């Protein structure tokens, strides 16, 4: 902080004068975020408002010779709150938020192409009486579409400073900084604008006519594109094509990239194993740490591709159209079209899906969608499903023209989608018992070509937060699991005493695993999973998959490799119960596999998802609810699946 920054009237002689606080308000799509990014240079901190699931973005900026705190308020069309999360925003402006004074000054961002509607919001802001500066964006687009606006006249009519900024091009940001530096001298309106709707309309009309405003013509390209993309027949076909392309990109394009990452970590782990003398340390470094981090990094190409697609579709304006097309379907679950976008992303990974719930204006919808998102079949389930379906269904089996394996896989995706919609419906019903029902409304922005910069920022940001939040969680779990599987240590004498040849690595690792703390744990939880047909080895797999689902494949692979290093898959099929009433009987029977499949379809086995729900809801309540209900549901549904399969199989 510079010492020149200590001369504020409000400072009252305090030695440690806090930074002046600015707030950025405006409607969604007005270009608020790109202005925030341009001002802060991306040094923003995300957090949460107390008690509600509204993300809070605060950054610092430099203007003139001092620094300011700037807060990006959630986009809104009105300062007349009709929901608890809108109330939070108004409380921030009015200084009613716990222990926080109102911001020192406001920047209100309006889109020049929708100025007529935006002036109602501007009127509400100006009635607050805080020093305010109007930031007008998209004047370039307005001019292209034959619109016109006299900014000095607008400034005179409103009685507050007006600055033109083209956020995506960074034009006008310096003017805005200059204006911010003078905030204590900003003029205020001679009389606050009226609140009565008719008087406010008359005020807005008069201000616009004084500023010689001519509304831009309708965007021709948007009209033509919409005529196709929202057409009852063509629109539906394009929508389905976009969805197919979406999955193709996320799964097909990402697969080789994921292969490279996997190969790299395999190689790295091999290097460590070869060069680290101590086998125990080599295992910890190679399997646990490198393997654990590798297990997360494998998903980075997919996540980044997914975010690239989402931010492209969002930036172009197609997401609003997809939401528009799907709203009726989503309304069956009590949700709205925008929730579709979140659930769609969850097909790849629940984390971007949960982050995408930020676009939902209603907190209840956001929570219902977050509770449903982990049920969508994410890519981490894919390797587990491939393994289990391979064990369950003969690759040659056909049901009609379709391969039976493919149909079962499709069934698992369908199960995920249907149960997600059902869960959303239940949580929405529970939520709707309190508070008012919110009306549905969504702006259809004109199609715009998103700037490469804003897309890259969105992709980079998401990848960063994914890595930061998940690497720690998964790495810690993998290391702990590895320790559990490899402790206690067994001396050579100890091994010999139990008839294990210390020279035979496979035999040693099988013995160590069978007598590890993990095995104890597997046996300990046996009463819980016995009704599902799981033995202690599956239990370890399920427990290890608790941090990340795909770990299950690795764990079972390790167990199987321990039994038959040459043909682990054969070993898996040949596995029998080692103890208990079923000892000697085959382990992977159809009912057990069905139960496992269904267990994985429902259980919240992803610490990263738990972490992101905690971050987005700002507390432990909702992640714990999600974890509890999904785990209980997984057990019950797995039991049902086992019973039904057993009946069918006879």
């Amino acid at each position, binding site marked *: 902080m510079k010492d020149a920054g200590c001369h504020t009237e409000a400072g009252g002689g305090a030695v440690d004068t806090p930074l002046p606080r600015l707030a950025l308000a405006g409607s969604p799509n007005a270009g608020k975020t790109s202005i925030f990014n341009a001002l802060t240079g991306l040094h923003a901190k995300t957090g949460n408002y107390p008690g509600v699931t509204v993300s809070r973005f605060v950054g610092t900026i430099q203007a003139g010779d001092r620094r300011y705190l700037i807060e990006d308020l959630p986009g809104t069309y009105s300062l007349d709150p009709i929901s608890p999360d809108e109330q939070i925003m108004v409380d921030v402006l009015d200084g009613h938020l716990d222990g926080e004074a109102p911001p020192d000054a406001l920047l209100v961002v309006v889109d020049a192409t929708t100025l*007529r509607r935006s002036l109602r919001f501007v009127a509400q802001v100006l009635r607050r009486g805080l020093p305010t500066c109007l930031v007008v964006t998209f004047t370039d687009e307005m001019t292209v579409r034959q619109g016109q606006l006299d900014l000095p006249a607008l400034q005179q009519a409103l009685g507050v400073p007006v600055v033109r900024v083209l956020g995506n091009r960074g034009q006008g940001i310096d003017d805005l900084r200059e204006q911010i530096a003078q905030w204590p001298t900003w003029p205020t309106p001679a009389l606050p604008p009226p609140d009565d709707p008719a008087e406010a*309309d008359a005020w807005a009309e008069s201000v616009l006519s004084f500023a010689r405003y001519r509304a831009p013509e309708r965007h021709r390209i948007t009209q033509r594109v919409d005529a196709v993309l929202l057409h009852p027949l063509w629109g539906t076909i394009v929508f389905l094509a976009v969805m197919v392309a979406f999955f193709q990109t996320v799964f097909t394009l990402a697969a080789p990239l994921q292969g490279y990452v996997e190969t790299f970590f395999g190689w790295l782990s091999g290097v460590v194993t070869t060069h680290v003398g101590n086998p125990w340390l080599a295992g910890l470094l190679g399997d646990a740490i490198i393997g654990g981090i590798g297990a997360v990094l494998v998903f980075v190409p997919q996540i980044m591709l997914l975010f690239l697609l989402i931010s492209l579709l969002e930036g172009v304006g197609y997401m609003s159209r997809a939401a528009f097309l799907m709203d009726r379907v989503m309304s069956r679950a009590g949700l709205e079209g925008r929730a579709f976008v979140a659930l769609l992303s969850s097909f790849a990974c629940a984390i971007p899906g949960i982050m995408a719930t930020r676009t939902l204006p209603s907190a209840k919808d956001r929570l219902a969608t977050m509770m449903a998102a982990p049920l969508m079949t994410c890519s981490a389930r894919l390797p587990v499903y491939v393994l289990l379906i391979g064990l369950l269904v003969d690759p040659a089996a056909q049901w009609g023209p379709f391969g039976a394996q493919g149909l079962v896989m499709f069934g698992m995706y369908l199960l995920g989608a249907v149960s997600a919609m059902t869960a959303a419906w239940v949580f929405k019903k529970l939520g709707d018992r309190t508070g008012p029902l919110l009306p549905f*409304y969504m702006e259809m922005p004109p199609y715009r070509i998103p700037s490469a910069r804003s897309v890259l920022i969105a992709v980079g940001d998401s990848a960063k937060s994914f890595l930061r939040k998940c690497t720690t969680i998964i790495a810690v779990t993998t290391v702990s699991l590895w320790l559990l599987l490899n402790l206690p240590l067994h001396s050579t004498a100890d091994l010999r005493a139990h008839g294990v040849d210390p020279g035979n690595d496979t035999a040693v690792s099988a013995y160590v695993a069978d007598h590890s703390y993990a095995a104890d744990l597997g046996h300990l939880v046996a009463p819980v999973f016995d009704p599902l047909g799981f033995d202690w080895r599956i239990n370890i797999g399920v427990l290890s998959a608790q941090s990340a689902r795909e770990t299950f494949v690795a764990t079972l692979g390790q167990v199987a490799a321990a039994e038959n290093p040459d043909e682990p898959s054969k070993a898996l099929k040949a596995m029998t119960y080692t103890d208990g009433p079923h000892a000697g009987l085959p382990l992977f029977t159809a009912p057990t596999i069905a139960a496992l499949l269904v267990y994985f379809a429902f259980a919240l086995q992803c610490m990263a998802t738990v972490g992101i729900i905690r971050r987005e809801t700002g507390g432990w309540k909702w992640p714990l609810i999600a974890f509890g209900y999904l785990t209980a549901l997984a057990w019950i549904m797995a039991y049902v699946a086992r019973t039904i399969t057993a009946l069918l199989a006879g």
Partner: protein
Amino acid sequence: MRAVEASTGSTGRLSGLPPGSRATIVGLADGAPPSTARRLTDLGFTAGTPVQVVRRAPLRDPVVYRVKDYDLCLRRAQAAHVLVRDAQ
């Protein structure tokens, strides 16, 4: 909930208009929930404002309306709270 102003043409509900039609907003229906009425007002559905029905979703709901120079989509349930006159 604001009183419906006296009007010359026949009045109807916005939700009843087919795509492509234009009308002038008269006000909001008395039965509209207060929070919905306030929000519709803030979104630009005020008395005297011209409104145009742009298009309907393939499943007939929601519907895109053009009001105050921008496109906004509403479900029919919300559009039913908006009273219009002089539909063409």
